[in-house]
């Protein structure tokens, strides 16, 4: 293929491809609509004003948020909280836990021992004699 004919083929191929692409191209909008569309250049002062308004709103939100936090009850550190002396509502006798009681169950003084509680709940185990 000579240089001229190759260039002609290339030109035809390019124009055919571009025509195919142009078929779905929307028609040109009217010039006036184009010039006054929202994407037109906004004046710099408009953008600056919008930025300042957003910054002011954020500052107000931050200040009011910090004031609200100041009015809330003081948060006590965990170390200052002592455990209540009252035992929990569920008495040990109602507990279904029979084996391996947690250390907290055995700790309060005056309570029946865990073994006694389990004896009340469960029948005595048969005695197994070794032969």
């Amino acid at each position, binding site marked *: *293929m000579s240089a001229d004919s190759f260039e002609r083929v290339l030109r035809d191929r390019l124009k055919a491809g571009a025509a*195919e692409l142009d078929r779905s191209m929307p028609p040109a909008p009217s010039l006036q609509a184009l*010039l006054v569309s929202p994407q037109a250049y906004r004046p710099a002062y408009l953008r600056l004003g919008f930025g300042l308004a957003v910054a002011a709103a954020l500052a107000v939100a931050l200040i009011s948020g910090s004031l609200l936090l100041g009015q809330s009850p003081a948060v006590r550190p965990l170390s200052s909280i002592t455990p209540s002396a009252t035992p929990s509502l569920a008495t040990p006798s109602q507990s279904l836990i029979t084996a391996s009681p947690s250390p907290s169950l055995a700790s309060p003084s005056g309570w029946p021992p865990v073994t006694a509680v389990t004896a009340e709940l469960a029948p005595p185990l048969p005695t197994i004699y070794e032969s």
Partner: protein
Amino acid sequence: MLRAIESAPASTLESEGAFERMYVATWPRLCRYAWVLVRHHEDAEDVAAETMRRAYGAWQTGRGPAGDPLPWLFVIARRIVIDRNKRRVLPWLPLSRAAESPAAVDSFGRLEAAAWFDQLRECLSPRQHEAILLRFLFDLGDDEIGRIMGLSPAGVRTNVSRGIATLRRRPEVLDR
């Protein structure tokens, strides 16, 4: 702006009419060139619209084109795309990496044409690709292409001839 147009003197209105005629005549080719640059239909329309707005501003202040307005518009469009690519965190991606929305790709023929343009782009360097499109698709001369791309006419000829040599080594690209 429209009020300004309505209350403008006769010479200005004549200028407005000339700009509108130029706009109607060049819009399809401007959109096509913008598509070549950004490879996305909606972005191409945005670029073309912004180009026209800038051109209108320049036209109003007497900084219009000296001759054919098409290369002048292409220069503006090219600058807009370069500016946007600098500003964006994620630059515009070519079609091969970022598919257009299904609504935008509405026919098989168009999809095939876009794929063919992508293949052409992959064969060539960016400068060769742009120079070849400006020469063979938009029928521009070396001087005009050079003004658009910021090259000398000799540089344009070099890019075009090297691009053609590359394509001659890969004739299957044209056969698709």
